[in-house]
């Protein structure tokens, strides 16, 4: 616990650095791209709490992300709710969905769980496509509120996402170092043995799916304001499912820093590729890098570093 205070300070320093960055006037595009990378830090970190720590691979990331985004859409349309409310509400609704898939783990393990989460995404997208109030398949334009607290609205959203990323990473780090993280690691290694050694496996799985779902929803909640036009194909994009899994795998799944490394590296590479090559190429990039890592460094960059150190 002695290292929690320094970690909090580092987190605050990151937020402060972001604020300074906001004051220094740089090209607005960097905020636009930076937002996406930070959003992926939240998504990869959230995915890793269930997939990396607990070993339950979730292919349904888009469902949770889009649920957060569409919860925000409903609240914007009906109540004109402020951004903090959207974020909390988006997180809570996605957390409920997470709790639901947690109960799935009672019957489905391994690849069967993954298939079920994939189906979840398809089902939810179909529902949203047929729900006119949130724009259906045609989509809906979202007006940003006028007068953000500082800067322009893009800069403001960037700062908010930076704060969310710091919160998500601190949460993951705290979980990892507590008895919950150790219990999740035990059940990832062998669920039956973990249960027989006194680990309350069901409770831990429900906790992991709920927290993971919450953070994915949180990542999605500011999305309508970010894109200003929301439609199912972009909210349920395959990118989220692939990146959520690829980024922790590339960084390393056993530690909180792994998803951060993966998200920053891969997210930056994708943004560069979108600008310099083509916007469709970035998923191909992920695929190639992921295959490379699975072959060369199956434990990600962290595993690679560890291996080089012990040599």
């Amino acid at each position: 616990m002695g290292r929690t205070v320094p970690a909090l300070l580092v987190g605050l320093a990151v937020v402060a650095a972001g604020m300074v960055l906001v004051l220094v006037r740089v090209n607005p595009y960097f905020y636009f791209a930076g937002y996406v990378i930070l959003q992926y830090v939240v998504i990869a970190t959230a995915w890793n709490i269930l997939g990396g720590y607990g070993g339950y691979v979730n292919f349904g990331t888009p469902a949770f992300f889009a649920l957060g985004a569409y919860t925000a859409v409903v609240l914007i349309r009906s109540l004109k709710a402020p951004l903090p409310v959207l974020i909390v509400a988006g997180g809570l609704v996605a957390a409920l969905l997470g709790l639901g898939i947690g109960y799935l783990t009672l019957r489905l393990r391994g690849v069967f769980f993954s298939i079920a989460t994939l189906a979840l995404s398809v089902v939810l997208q179909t529902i949203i496509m047929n729900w006119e109030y949130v724009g259906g398949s045609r989509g809906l334009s979202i007006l940003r509120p006028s007068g953000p607290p500082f800067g322009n609205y893009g800069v403001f959203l960037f700062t908010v996402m930076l704060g969310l990323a710091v919160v998500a990473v601190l949460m993951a780090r705290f979980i990892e170092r507590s008895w919950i993280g150790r219990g999740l690691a035990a059940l990832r290694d062998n669920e039956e043995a973990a249960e027989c050694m006194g680990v309350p496996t069901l409770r831990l799985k429900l906790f992991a799916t709920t927290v993971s779902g919450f953070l994915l929803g949180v990542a999605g909640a500011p999305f309508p304001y970010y894109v200003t036009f929301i439609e199912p194909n972009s909210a349920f994009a395959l990118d989220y499912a692939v990146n959520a899994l690829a980024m922790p795998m590339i960084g390393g799944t056993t530690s909180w820093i792994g998803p951060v490394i993966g998200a920053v590296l891969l997210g930056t590479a994708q943004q560069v590729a979108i600008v310099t090559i083509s916007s469709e190429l970035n998923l191909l990039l992920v695929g190639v890098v992921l295959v490379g890592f699975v072959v060369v460094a199956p434990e990600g960059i962290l595993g690679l570093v560890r291996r080089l150190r012990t040599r």
Partner: protein
Amino acid sequence: MAGALLEINGLTKRFGGFLALNQVSIAVKPGERFGLIGPNGSGKTTLINCVSGSLPVDGGRITFEGRDITAMPAHRRTRLGIVRSFQIPKPFTSMTVLANLGIPLENAAHGRGADGADAMQILETIGLANKAHLRPAGLTQIEMRKLELARAMAARPKLLISDEAMAGLSSAEVDDILAILFRLNEQGITIIMIEHIMRAVMRFSERIVVLDAGERIAEGTPDEIVRNPAVEKAYLGE
């Protein structure tokens, strides 16, 4: 039976149409060294899975220290003091040997606040102290079995169920494991031993129950069991 530590009453377990356990009743006394034997497929491991909570039962009642635990989840039974080892070792592969013991110490042991010193002490008594910082993948077969027992000990059991801890080991290694189990029993831990190695189970057990095709066919001291014609028939046929 009055004063039994573990009491199994009319336990029945089905897998589809297959009756794996049929009305099995067993009582184990506190401090006892209890042997459970039977041919392959007789239901020994199924019985253990039902007692430890890994499998739900289809009928009957299990009580531990007078408390009905029939529907209790496995991790809570472990916390009460029923701890098992696995026939095929199931270590936590991503953790060191020492960290493997940390899981039951943290989650099951009576009196929390256990630390690395407790785990190290257990490893010393079982002879794995010099492997404490290795991953289980670096262990030999016998060391893996010892880790399985060490991890079970870290849960501070009142009743230890040893599921074929000696299968596939050499004669000297069997003696090694037996000595550990005897020592645990002297410390007051009740032990149920499931074993195919007759030399070991006969030497170890004070009382033996024989299962065949899901039914209890005999009970007695090792000497009585050896001379029992029904047991001979179950193992060798007519």
